[in-house]
């Protein structure tokens, strides 16, 4: 029998880039097929072709053995293909029902929208696949994980048989990821099929039925979680051995670089998001901030970088008081910021790579003289950084919007690391990066620490926090519950703290003891 979906010889060229090079891929009914590959390998491009957002230069698509032509997303939907985009396409001020009906409206006599009928169908879908979504809730009130489920229902509402999910786990908390995997299982058990993209090898091992690895636009090979292990997958992806764990030297902290006392910050809805926080970071150490997303980390970072004025408290950078200062003042002190939302804050998507690389240094020599920009210098420095940080782009004149997600992140990292800095505030620095790039960025972070840079690392990835930090602060509901030495921090203890429970001292040593037993 013909497979549910077959891609044959799909080829896509962009100016200067062969993004997909004769890709063959099959998807069987009822399987979760993971697509793995380094940043810029061509995964998103392939999925965009399948969903009709791009058109392929060569190659054919077959559904149930029949050739289909997909020029528009509507063609894809007709062929039973749906896509959950990495950036959700929901309208916050609409209810779940209204969002789902959009473009597929049910109409009553007289031309009125039949919300009831739609809501009933949504409830039915939600129950069938355990999605647990209230059709009458407003999207703006829903956590990210639930919004993603709304996107899934939107696809199922249109009777899709094939679901494409491009890095669905990147924006989720670990708990939400677990839930998502359960839902994906239910979906395939009920006969749907899923193509799933991720950079997290652990997730692939956990939930995929089949794995296809793409590199440089070509299919490198296919395997299953049974046959492969994370190390093998990493090697297939990147084409060389990858160090998944990084060796950390003992820290030798020097003078205090960042000092925060009794800081309070309001979020945009005027709720107290950061509640009386005090801590410091010293030269040559990494302070990790762990916590479930949405416990005040975002606002803390925005306050430290001058983007959100705090209501109270003291922020000292290198002995300078900065609480009411502008971002420019703070960066000029020698502080760098890798923002959490790269597309919103960190990049000007319409600008070329070279311009993004000078986004906060353009007014300095040699990039400008007086008020005139020096394009030769800008291009030279851009080329050097592209080379050094292995940013995959046809040229430094390519708009950043044309780069793959991971390469966009590398542009930010390259920019922030290329200045002489004394303080680095890094928020989710490796989000969306492949294992090779994560290894590289972790190494650079450690090198900065060795050079005597103070680093504040905010991440929802516990592994990353534990691996890189010298001390770990856990945030919960705007407060720092505890600051632990890295050697005392186990996943169990951190997990408890992140849930708002302060473990007693015995529990800490107990947990540590157990971990040691496991390790030996």
């Amino acid at each position: 029998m013909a497979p549910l979906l077959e891609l044959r010889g799909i080829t896509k060229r962009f100016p200067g880039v062969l993004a997909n090079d004769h890709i063959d891929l099959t998807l069987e009914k009822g399987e979760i097929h993971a697509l793995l590959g380094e940043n810029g390998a061509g995964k998103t491009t392939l999925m965009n072709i399948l969903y009709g957002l791009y058109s392929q230069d060569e190659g054919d698509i077959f559904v149930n053995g029949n050739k289909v032509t997909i020029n528009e997303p509507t063609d894809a939907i007709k062929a039973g293909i749906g896509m959950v985009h990495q950036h959700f396409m929901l309208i916050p001020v609409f209810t779940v029902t209204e969002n789902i009906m959009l473009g597929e409206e049910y109409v009553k006599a007289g031309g009125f929208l039949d919300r009831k009928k739609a809501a009933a169908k949504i409830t039915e879908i939600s129950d069938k696949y355990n999605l647990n979504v209230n059709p009458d809730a407003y999207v703006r009130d829903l956590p990210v994980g639930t919004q993603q489920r709304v996107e899934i229902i939107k696809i199922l509402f249109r009777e899709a048989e094939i679901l494409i999910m491009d890095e669905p786990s990147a924006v989720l908390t670990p708990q939400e990821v677990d839930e998502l995997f359960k839902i994906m299982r239910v979906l395939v058990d009920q006969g749907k099929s899923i193509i799933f993209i991720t950079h997290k090898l652990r997730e692939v091992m956990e939930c995929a039925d089949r794995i296809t690895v793409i590199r440089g636009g070509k299919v490198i090979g296919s395997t299953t979680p049974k046959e492969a292990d994370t190390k093998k997958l990493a090697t297939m992806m990147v084409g060389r051995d990858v160090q998944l764990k990084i060796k950390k030297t003992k820290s030798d902290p020097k003078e205090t670089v960042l000092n925060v006392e009794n800081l309070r910050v309001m979020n945009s809805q005027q709720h107290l998001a950061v509640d009386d926080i005090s801590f410091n970071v010293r030269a040559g150490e990494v302070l990790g901030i762990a916590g479930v997303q949405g416990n005040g980390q975002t606002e803390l970072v925005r306050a430290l970088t001058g983007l959100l004025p705090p209501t109270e408290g003291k922020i000292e950078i290198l002995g300078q008081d900065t609480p009411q200062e502008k971002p420019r003042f703070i960066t000029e002190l020698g502080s760098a910021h890798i923002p959490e939302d790269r597309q919103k804050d960190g990049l000007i998507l319409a600008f070329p790579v070279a311009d993004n690389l000078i986004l906060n240094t353009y007014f300095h020599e040699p990039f400008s003289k007086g008020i005139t920009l020096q394009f030769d210098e800008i291009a030279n420095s851009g080329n050097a950084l592209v080379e050094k940080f292995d940013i995959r782009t046809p040229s430094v004149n390519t708009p950043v919007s044309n780069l793959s997600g991971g390469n966009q992140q590398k542009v930010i990292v390259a920019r922030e690391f290329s200045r002489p800095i004394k303080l680095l505030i890094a928020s989710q620095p490796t989000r969306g990066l492949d294992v090779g790039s994560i290894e590289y960025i972790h190494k650079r972070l450690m090198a900065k620490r060795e050079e005597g840079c103070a680093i504040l690392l905010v991440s929802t990835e516990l592994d990353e926090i534990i691996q890189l930090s010298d001390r770990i602060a856990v945030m919960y509901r705007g407060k720092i519950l505890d600051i632990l030495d890295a050697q005392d921090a186990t996943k169990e203890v951190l997990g408890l703290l992140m849930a708002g429970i302060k473990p007693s001292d015995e529990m800490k040593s107990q947990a540590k003891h157990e971990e040691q037993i496991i390790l030996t």
Partner: protein
Amino acid sequence: MENQKQTQNKPSGIAVFFDELSKSSGMVTFLAILTGILIAGLLVALTTVEVYDAFSISFWSGIKEALRTAWNTYSSLFIGAFGDPKKIAAAFQGGDGLEIRRAINPFFESLVQTTPFIFGGLSVALGFRVGLFNIGAEGQLFIGAMTSVYAGYAITGLPAYIHIPLALLAGAAGGAAWGFVPGYLKAKTGAHEVIITIMMNYIAFKLSDFMLRGPMKDPNEYTPKTPWIQESAQLTRLFPDTIRFHIGFFIALGVAYFVYWLLFKTTWGFELRTVGSNPNGARYAGINTTKATVVAMSLAGSLAGLAGANEVLGLNYRLVPSFTSGYGFDSIALALLGKNHPLGVVLSALLFGFLRNGSRQMQLKSGVPIDIVSILQALILTFIAAPAIIRSIYRLKKPDHEEETIKVGSWGGN
């Protein structure tokens, strides 16, 4: 290291060229203009009585009459805009200076009509580049005309090489003040610039009415008019009598280049474009978005002010009520057509200027109302604004990236 810079089996250069051309927006602009001309021609034929009469005789004579009407319309439009080639040739053979000037006058008159469009289009385009929707060009133009005319008649005894720049600067300053207000209000209070600039337009119209009847009225006249400006403030004309063409056109080209240089070659322009493209990113980069908003609106105002100055210093030599007919509003359309790029603005200003000038002759000669040119402009703009129509008519390829759209600040400012 895998490098995607070297891709194997590249398609041939020519194939890539056509591929890119069919995706590019330049092609869409060209086809939009062509399609607009075709449809407007059809409309002319459909609204002409003779065409129906001819159809009642036979189908073919109807078609012939329709084609003839459209041809007549467009050829008189062309002659109105560029001059009659036959007459020009004859005049040059005759060698009479006045005859030659009469023959070539339409072409230069079109350039005269183009000039305020260039200034106005630059004003709107600059605003768009910074994410601001400047509906106020018309009002800024009025104020600029008023301040420059004042500098033109009230200051006496200056040589032209000082008086002309001074009067132009006065116009720019007046427009800048009119742009500054909405910029400042937007930056400080979040008031939307669209509303404020519309209101500022009304204030400008009424203020100029008041000034013309009161403080700036020429005491020797019965109707509201300002005094004549000094000869030393008049923009130099390049030909003797009948041709009104003056140095304003070249000043406009110079200013267009200046705006291009400012936007794309300087750190200030970098800041302005960053704010326009992603205000959050601009704040992250340490750019003062408040300042950028105020500066951009003031600059946009000064450009529109120059349009007004150009009219009174180059053509009218005094200010009379309602002296312009909507240059400021047409400039919005024109900036969009020119993709908010100074070069694009100059090209679309030429298109608008030649159309506007040609349309008078067209009305005179073929009896087709001037409004057909407005319809033509509207059609072109519709196709530019909705490129999907053009793409599907001509089966152009879909671009692989989102088409550049105009972002303007949301309600409530930031």
